[in-house]
Structures are given as structure tokens and as C-alpha cells.
């Protein structure tokens, strides 16, 4: 199942409207009419510890394009995706991409073991039900949110994705990022 939710706002500039419509068009094949209260809204702020022991605040990444990925070690499609996201982090870091992983594992030790076996080039924070609810209810994985440099959610990916399409959407957003 692939779902991408993207909408546009009347308040946006013409360029932004075109961008968001472009993102929607790229994912339109699998779009679903479920409620998407977070789209085109500011990404809910949060502060969490990452598995390297550092404190991470989403607000610190304002100005970057952020891919916020909810995942878990028990989720097959998630485990398939995260090495690709790690590759994107390396490739697009200079262009302004920041991937942030949110682990929804019950067992933090399992995540630590996973990260030892599969090092990721981006921070992974400990998620919980509260954070899931804050993001509209993460009731199944994987789920990712694409956040623009202004801190607004421009796409919501639910389930297995066409990663080539997702990467194109990220590249489009990076191209529009102020230098």
C-alpha cells in the first residue's frame, strides 16, 4: 500500500502552490482521501534524545528540508527503506536535507543492536505513543513526513513507497530551498 497525502494552501505563493501540486501529482497514483489534518501545517515541534545520547529538537532544523521517518526494527518495509534514507542523507546533506528517524520500537535495546549492524547517517530518536498522536496517529508503519524549510509538512507517506518518486519530491523541494 502506498499513500501520499499532499495539499496546497490558498495562502501560499504561486511558486509554492506549483511545488505542492507537483508533489501531489508525483504521488497521485496512490493518493487516498483520508483526513490529513497535518498537511500544509507547521510540523508539530518535539524534543527527544537520540540513540547517540544527544538531544534533538525539530526546530533546530528550520531552514532545511526534513524527512521525518517513523519506523521500527520489526517492520520489514521500514528496514528496507532506512539504508536508502541514509544514502540520501549523505548525498543531499550539502543541499540541505536532514533525515530524522523516529523509532517506534517498544525495546530501545533492539534499536541499538540494529544501529550497530546498520549504521545510519542521520539521527534516530526514541519515539512513543505521545509523539505518534502528535503526528496525527502513527497507527502503522512505515510513515514519513516531508517538511519544507519553513517547517511546514508538505507530504505524508504511509506504507511502502516508490522511493524513486519520493526522492524526486525531495529533490524538487531542495531545488526550491533558499541558498
Amino acid at each position, binding site marked *: 500500500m502506498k499513500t501520499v497525502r499532499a495539499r496546497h494552501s490558498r495562502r501560499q505563493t504561486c511558486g509554492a502552490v506549483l511545488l505542492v501540486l507537483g508533489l501531489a501529482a508525483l504521488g497521485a497514483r496512490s493518493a487516498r482521501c483520508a483526513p490529513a489534518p497535518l498537511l500544509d501545517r507547521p510540523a508539530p515541534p518535539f524534543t527527544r534524545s537520540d540513540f547517540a545520547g544527544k538531544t534533538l529538537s525539530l526546530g533546530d532544523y528550520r531552514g532545511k528540508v526534513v524527512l521525518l521517518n517513523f519506523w521500527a526494527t520489526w517492520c520489514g518495509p521500514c528496514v528496507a527503506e532506512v539504508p536508502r534514507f541514509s544514502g540520501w542523507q549523505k548525498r543531499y546533506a550539502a543541499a540541505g536535507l536532514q533525515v530524522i528517524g523516529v523509532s517506534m520500537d*517498544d525495546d530501545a535495546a533492539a534499536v541499538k543492536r540494529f544501529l550497530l549492524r546498520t549504521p545510519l547517517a542521520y539521527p534516530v530518536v526514541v519515539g512513543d505513543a505521545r509523539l505518534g498522536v502528535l503526528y496525527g496517529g502513527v497507527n502503522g508503519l512505515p510513515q514519513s513526513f516531508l517538511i519544507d524549510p519553513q517547517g511546514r509538512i508538505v507530504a505524508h507517506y504511509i506504507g511502502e513507497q516508490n522511493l524513486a518518486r519520493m526522492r524526486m519530491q525531495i529533490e524538487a523541494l531542495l531545488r526550491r530551498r533558499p541558498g
Partner: protein
Amino acid sequence: MKQHARTALATLCLMSCIYACPRDARAEHPPASSIPGAMLIEPAALAAALKSTDRAKPLVLQVGFHVLFEEAHIAGAKYAGPAGEEAGLRALDLRVKNLPKDADIVIYCGCCPWSHCPNIAAAFDRLRSLGFTHVRALHLADNFGADWVDKGYPVASAR
């Protein structure tokens, strides 16, 4: 010959490491597709059964991960634990210990797409092996959010 021995030894070490590692998404688990179709129940049918007042409601058990149960679960459902893990199976055993073998039980997970679920078939197999005769698995094709919450069926939160 020595080269072959070294390769075999390295392969053996690698395999030992893989199998010794705790379970994650790469661990083996019975596929959800192993559950017979006749033992599945669709979300709309379960929602109707839970709404019905003229017959006994099934016991609904969530056999997935606690963080997801805490966020949202089927109203009235009980938490059993992730049956893809030994600890989850033990928790499931305890949960059903005092139930009659013909208890009407519906299990569900919905942690991820049906074909990738590490828990549902493991829970189904365990309950059948314990002798339960009326076990059905809720067919959540995509996940709990898409196939239950977004459809407006009753949910509760443990938060």
C-alpha cells in the same frame, strides 16, 4: 582447499551471528498468508459484530506492539503482546490461560502491511496449537490506521 575451509568458516561465523542476534524484521516468522481465508474477518464485519447488541461479542486481542496499542486500539480490545517474539507468545498464553477452548477470539495486529506482519500468523498458530477452535484473524491489509482508524470504526487509547 584451505581457501574453501576459510570461506566455509567465515560463512558459518556469519550465519551464527545472524541467528544469535535478537529478532528484528529480518527474523523468520510465519507469513500472514498462511492463515486460511476462512479464518479471516474483515474490518467491516468485526465493527458490525462489536456494534451488535443481539449476540455475544468476540474477545478481541491485539497481538502487536505496545506503543501502537497505547496510541490507539480497537475499543474493548485487550493487549496480548507481539506474538512474533517469545515474550509476546508467553504473554498471549497467559492472556488466554483461563478461557474455554471454544471462546470466540479475534486477533489483530496492523503494525505494518499484512504481508509483512511478524505477529498475526504466529499468534494464530499459537492459539490453534493451544486448542482454541474459534480463532479468527482481523484482515488489516495496509495497517491499523488505514483499515480501522481512518474508516471511523471505534477506537480507544491507553494513554
